[in-house]
């Protein structure tokens, strides 16, 4: 058997706030195989966001190892982690985090700034990513001229533009209405099925967690359940919304 894309062993994250020690993660171990679509659930303060930041190489664990694509990334320098974020990881945030007063097109191209992709290739890839999220014809709009759903699509296109092996979505539907949320999840599902991109989706909404095929639940910095499920399909979703 080949090694899992994400291999986490006994991960600890301890923050020190003055004299108080906060244990955000207490010995988390799990594997996520390439091509999986995983939901990470938990109440706020359960450690799921910390887990996600470590998976995305934005943060480093206090103890334990994290191997991404067979590379131990828990001990890399800040610059090396920046390279990993650039090449292997795509982020989608709750509040979209697009750069204001900068066109959708340029927002999508942003990760390519910091890679060695040549300029003509850069334009081609940005177009490809925008097409993948169904956002053609609005490339030159500014974020303020786009709806929430459209902004999140731009953010997804940006996450995809460097062809990462891992897509991390932190409450991506938190600021969206139900219909738009479903559209965004559809995009995730399609990307996962058609392009085989591994997706880790952090959420606290049980509704949303029905779409992935696996649900990991956190409480107090530990994994309390890790279940496989048959993901909800498009038709069932529509009937739920109607009912």
């Amino acid at each position, binding site marked *: 058997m080949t090694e899992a894309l994400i291999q986490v062993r006994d991960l600890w994250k301890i923050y020190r706030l003055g004299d108080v020690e906060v244990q955000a993660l207490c010995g988390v171990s799990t594997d996520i195989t390439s091509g999986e679509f995983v939901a990470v659930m938990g109440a706020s303060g359960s450690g799921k966001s910390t887990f996600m*930041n470590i998976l995305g190489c*934005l943060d480093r664990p206090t103890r334990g190892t994290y191997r991404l694509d067979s590379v131990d990334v828990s001990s890399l320098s*800040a610059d090396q982690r*920046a390279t990993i974020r650039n090449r292997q990881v795509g982020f989608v945030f709750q509040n979209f*985090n697009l*750069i204001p007063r*900068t066109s959708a097109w340029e927002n999508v191209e942003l*990760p390519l700034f*910091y890679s060695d992709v040549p300029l003509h290739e850069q334009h081609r890839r940005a177009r490809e990513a925008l097409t993948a999220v169904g956002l053609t014809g609005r490339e030159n709009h500014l974020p303020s001229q786009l709806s929430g759903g459209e902004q999140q699509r731009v953010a997804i296109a*940006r996450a995809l533009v460097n062809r990462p092996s891992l897509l991390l979505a932190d409450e991506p539907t938190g600021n969206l209405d139900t219909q738009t949320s479903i559209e965004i999840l559809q995009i995730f599902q399609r990307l996962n099925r058609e392009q085989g991109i591994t997706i880790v989706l952090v959420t606290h909404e049980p509704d949303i967690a029905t779409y992935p095929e696996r649900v990991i639940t956190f409480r107090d910095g530990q994994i309390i359940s890790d279940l496989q499920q048959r993901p909800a399909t498009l038709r069932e979703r529509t009937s739920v919304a109607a009912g």
Partner: protein
Amino acid sequence: MKLLRMTLRTALRALRRNKMRSALTMLGIIIGVAAVITMVSIGQGADAAVQNQIRSLGTNLLMVIPGATTSSGVRSGWGGVSTLTAADAAAIKKECPSVAEVTHFKRQIVQVVYGDQNWATAAQGSTPTFQKVRDWPVSMGEFFTQRDEDTANRVVVLGQTVVDHLFGPGEDPVDAYVRIKDVPFRVIGVLEAKGQTTWGQDQDDVLVMPFSTAERRVLGTQFLGTVDMIFASAGSTEEINTATQEITTVLHDRHHIQPEQENDFTVRNLNDIAKASESASKVMTNLLLSVALISLLVGGIGIMNILLVSVTERTREIGIRMAVGAKARHILLQFLVEAITLSMVGGLAGAILGIAGAQLISYFAAWPTLLSPAAVAGSFLFSGAVGVFFGFYPARKASRLDPIAALRYE
């Protein structure tokens, strides 16, 4: 390369977005650079003008002036008594190795008459070496020779001002006869126009004739052989001080001056005068320059201030850039490029303004200005350095942000 282009584009856009703010930030640099260039232009222009005037008196010129005499308790300053003679001049020429040429003269105001025109001017009786020592060529005709001097010939060389007053336009003064104190003289040459001295005297309002002619036929004298002044030229600029020493020693001996006595002559050289005026204008230039540099520094602090505001405003943007793979040095570069763009654009605008300012001042105030390419390039580069120096702190602050905290920043 691609990164640099993108960074520059991002920087320009960020600055364009806050046009008013960017312009006000640049103002300090603009004023500083413009002030430096204008000040240096005026300073160098004034300096060059003064140096030119001083040099017009002659190269490496030493003046020996009679005077500083104490006779039975009556003291007088230089020029008080005629204590110098033509023989002194000859001795200087003979005994001072550092002296290349010597001339001496006697001068008196005389009335010159030509046809129905007349003009009062300074008549100088001098030697054929006058021309060499004063570095003063003729524009027409020729200067008198040793033969004219030996035979006390009645020939005269006129200054341009005298020619202008006596002769009509287009009239050839050479070979014309003029009368000086009722003695007819043949004009053999016209001296090139030299213009005014530093102290505003018209150097061209003069006529020169052989010393012997002046002494015997025109000016007359109480004591034969006394002269008003001796001019000597040192062999080179380096020899000026040695020449001064040698002349002092020679005259000291010839005049039998006792150790406790004051000298009855004074040796002055033009380099001292030039240096004095140069150092005066240097002090002024340096003062103005330091004010201008302070303005540049204040401008730099303005840039730093606005960049710190910008870093805070764009904290989340920095977080986003870091999340998608920007390294610390990318962020550092971006803000540094913004700072340098601000200061260089300001420097360029300041340079244009400074050059225009110098031109306007020389046009309206009629001050001589000399545009110094070194000052323009120097102040422009300095403004760039100000950008780097004052941009570095905010840029480093931005590059050290924690990506997670920056992403959450509200």
